[in-house]
């Protein structure tokens, strides 16, 4: 069994419990990264890049665990997968709207303090979070895979 086949097998036989663990890891890492970046603690300069790297890793693993379903075009998917993907985007859309409105209301008048050296990573993490949010929704909603009939 070559490595690409093993990776493919790992993706398609992903258990829901594994996806949920990755989802929790994803949420915690982003929460830590944003909390560390927006706080004014002295050790921020060390912890912020580590938290950023772990958040990126969690996004990558989460995206792999749902076989990168949200990024696939219609031609690569069957009807059920298309329905799952589009449904995930609908929920992600509502989460993003709610978050954007909440952030505007909370920090709209006061502003937020982000140290100069962390502004780029903070914006990058926001973009990557938004890009992987549908994958997080799929990781939560998608049921346990049906065992392969061939195996």
């Amino acid at each position, binding site marked *: 069994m070559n490595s690409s086949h093993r990776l493919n097998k790992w993706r398609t036989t992903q258990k829901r419990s594994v996806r949920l663990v990755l989802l929790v890891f994803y949420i915690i890492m982003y929460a830590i990264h944003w909390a560390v970046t927006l706080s004014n603690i002295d050790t921020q300069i060390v912890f912020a890049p580590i938290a950023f790297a772990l958040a990126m890793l969690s996004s990558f693993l989460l995206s792999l665990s749902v076989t990168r379903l949200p990024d696939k075009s219609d031609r690569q998917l069957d009807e059920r997968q298309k*329905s799952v993907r589009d449904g995930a985007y609908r929920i992600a859309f509502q989460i993003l709207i709610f978050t954007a409105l909440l952030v505007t209301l909370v920090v709209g008048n006061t502003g*937020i303090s982000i140290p100069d050296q962390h502004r780029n990573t903070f914006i990058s993490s926001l973009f990557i979070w938004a890009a992987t949010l549908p994958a997080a929704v799929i990781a939560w909603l998608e049921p346990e895979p049906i065992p392969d009939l061939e195996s």
Partner: protein
Amino acid sequence: MTIDQDIKNPFPTPIKPLRVRRNRRVLTAISSVFLIAAIVLAFAKLGYLALPALIVSAVLGIVLQFATRNLSNSTNLITDERERALRDHAHRIAYWIMAGVLGGIVGGTFGFLIKQDPSEPVMLVKDFFKLETQVFIFSIAAIFLGLPTSLIAWLEPDALDDTILEN
């Protein structure tokens, strides 16, 4: 509520002109023009002109909501497979438009302020309670809240003529 009960969409069937895609597209275009005008006027600090533009756009948005029978906010219980597919597809397109616009706003704000004193807070909006700022915020919110509906109004084909079905 039991599963046997016939759950129907509470929104009435739209009037005949709104069942035609061309008319819905015209309404969507006019609503978008007014919304963009509201944003531009708010930027130009003409709040007293931006507010009416936003109100007109909001009214047209409500008309579109009725024209699409509020499909964008309908639950799975009151939609069939085709409507669900259309609703979710519209949200998928809206998601990427929204991510792009929000990304542009946030990225642009930070990029613009990158040279400011790091100890000063980054202000996403200035003079939060001014009329222009409020109109701007509500216009952006209206874009996002109305985007799936506008896309559905744009994509949904002409409704079938009832007489065909009856015959």
